[in-house]
């Protein structure tokens, strides 16, 4: 382990993955992509963030999209805030708070695999797809191919290798893989992360791959006001004399903590100045 601070994250199948904190620099980019509604590049950004911040590359290559969502939600919970807040338009500013840990706990339980026997020694293993979001059913199908077991030795496949394998395997297996993805979609549709709540205009959120529901949920939990973030940068730079590099290396939660200390200090100074006889 290098000198960076890592957060241990429990993903599916009781695997622990170490992931670096989410820094202001990363969060700033996320907010900009969100503001521009550039979700294609935001999904690439999330993938790159995970690839470069997970300690073990071997572990990274094995993560499915549920694992990736767990890591991102954990990082969101620790480095930004453990709750998401939804305001009701109907109930005059009544606020609903949703604890991210509950959602993470339900995702950790997700498990769905299958194998197709190719001969007595070889089998093709199917698993939950890896990509965070999908643009076609075709992508889901290909991404469900995970590994090959030959003589009890499992070999995980890269995207390039999966493409090669689809040219080797008979077309009849296409329908077995399609059947796997259909059942997987049914299974994931039944995993409810957030219940529907009409008072908050909140639709129920499940883990559907076909609708990219989990990815869309991630987008919403990472969305915030870009303007507020610019104000934060301004305060750190002009009032706290923090260098850009130092600010970039803080987490959003740390920045808010420091900002609150500063505000508290300013309030105390103001109080003290009011008490002093003029």
């Amino acid at each position, binding site marked *: 382990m290098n000198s960076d601070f890592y957060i241990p994250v429990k993903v599916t199948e009781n695997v622990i993955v170490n992931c670096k904190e989410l820094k202001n620099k990363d969060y700033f980019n996320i907010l900009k992509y969100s503001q521009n509604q550039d979700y294609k590049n935001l999904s690439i950004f999330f993938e790159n963030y995970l690839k470069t911040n997970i300690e073990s590359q071997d572990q990274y290559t094995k993560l499915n999209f549920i694992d990736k969502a767990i890591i991102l939600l954990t990082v969101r919970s620790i480095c930004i805030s453990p709750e998401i807040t939804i305001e009701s338009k109907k109930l005059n500013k009544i606020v609903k708070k949703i604890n991210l840990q509950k959602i993470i706990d339900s995702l950790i339980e997700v498990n769905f695999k299958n194998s197709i026997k190719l001969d007595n020694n070889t089998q093709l293993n199917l698993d939950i797809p890896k990509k965070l979001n999908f643009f076609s059913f075709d992508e889901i*199908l290909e991404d469900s191919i995970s590994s090959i077991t030959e003589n009890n030795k499992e070999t995980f496949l890269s995207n390039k290798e999966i493409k090669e394998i689809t040219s080797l395997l008979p077309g009849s297996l296409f329908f077995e893989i399609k059947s796997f993805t259909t059942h997987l979609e049914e299974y994931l549709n039944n995993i409810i992360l957030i219940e529907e709540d009409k008072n908050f205009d909140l639709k129920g959120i499940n883990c559907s791959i076909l609708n990219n529901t989990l990815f869309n949920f991630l987008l919403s939990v990472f969305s915030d006001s870009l303007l507020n973030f610019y104000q934060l940068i301004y305060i750190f730079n002009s009032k706290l004399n923090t260098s850009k590099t130092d600010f970039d290396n803080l987490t959003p939660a740390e920045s808010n903590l420091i900002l609150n200390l500063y505000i508290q200090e300013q309030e105390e100074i103001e109080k003290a100045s009011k008490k002093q006889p003029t």
Partner: protein
Amino acid sequence: MAEKNLFEALSRAVAIETIAAKVLSLNTVDNFKALNIKQQKDLLKTALDGIMAPVSFFTTANEIILENQIIKQDLYVVDRPLILLNLRKLSVGDEFKTTVKDQPATLKISDLISNANNISIDIKAFSKEIAHNNITITTKIPTLKEDTQINIQLKKLFDKIKDEDKLKEIIGELFVVELLKFIKNVKFTSDGSTDTIEFSELTLEQKIKAFETLPMSLNYEFVKFVTEIRNIENSIFDTVVDGEKVTIPQDSSFFFKE
């Protein structure tokens, strides 16, 4: 990451099956490899190509047939239906589910194959001259390679057109392009000398322009010739169920099963 010998082991484990299919133009029986997952996916994906879906389907089918042919030799568009039936039977199964008189029906692909195996085609007989006054069209049956080349040019032409109204206008040209595939050359005779336009040397746009200059009476004879060939091709996908003629679609749905 997988090692090279894992792929070799995988190839051994799933030794791709082959099927012997009659090649009508050659009057021989040739072996073809079964579809792989990628090819199966490519065929199904053609359904997403909107108005170009039929062109995409036949382009993909041509490429697959040529890739899966064990002994490489020229194949013609008239060979395609029977080879597709055989590949479908091997890779997806012998049963094809459809609806006849609003009732679900299951057809046997092997029955269609048996019928088609009785067809014989003399490819040379389809190279003939259709003349009117001083203009002569020399006809041919296109090879799968030629069919693919024109389809690719056609798709490029369509991709350039973004305007929906213009696109609707040009759909009529799809029919013209199908006809063009069957022209070897056009000869013009005047004052005792003959000029020949070899269609293989023209771009698609030039072919369309040249075709549009041909007189209607010549066109009529030529369309009759092409229809005769298309009827042979289509008849291979026709069958009769309970006295009702049923045509199996030659598109991506033929390679799909629930």
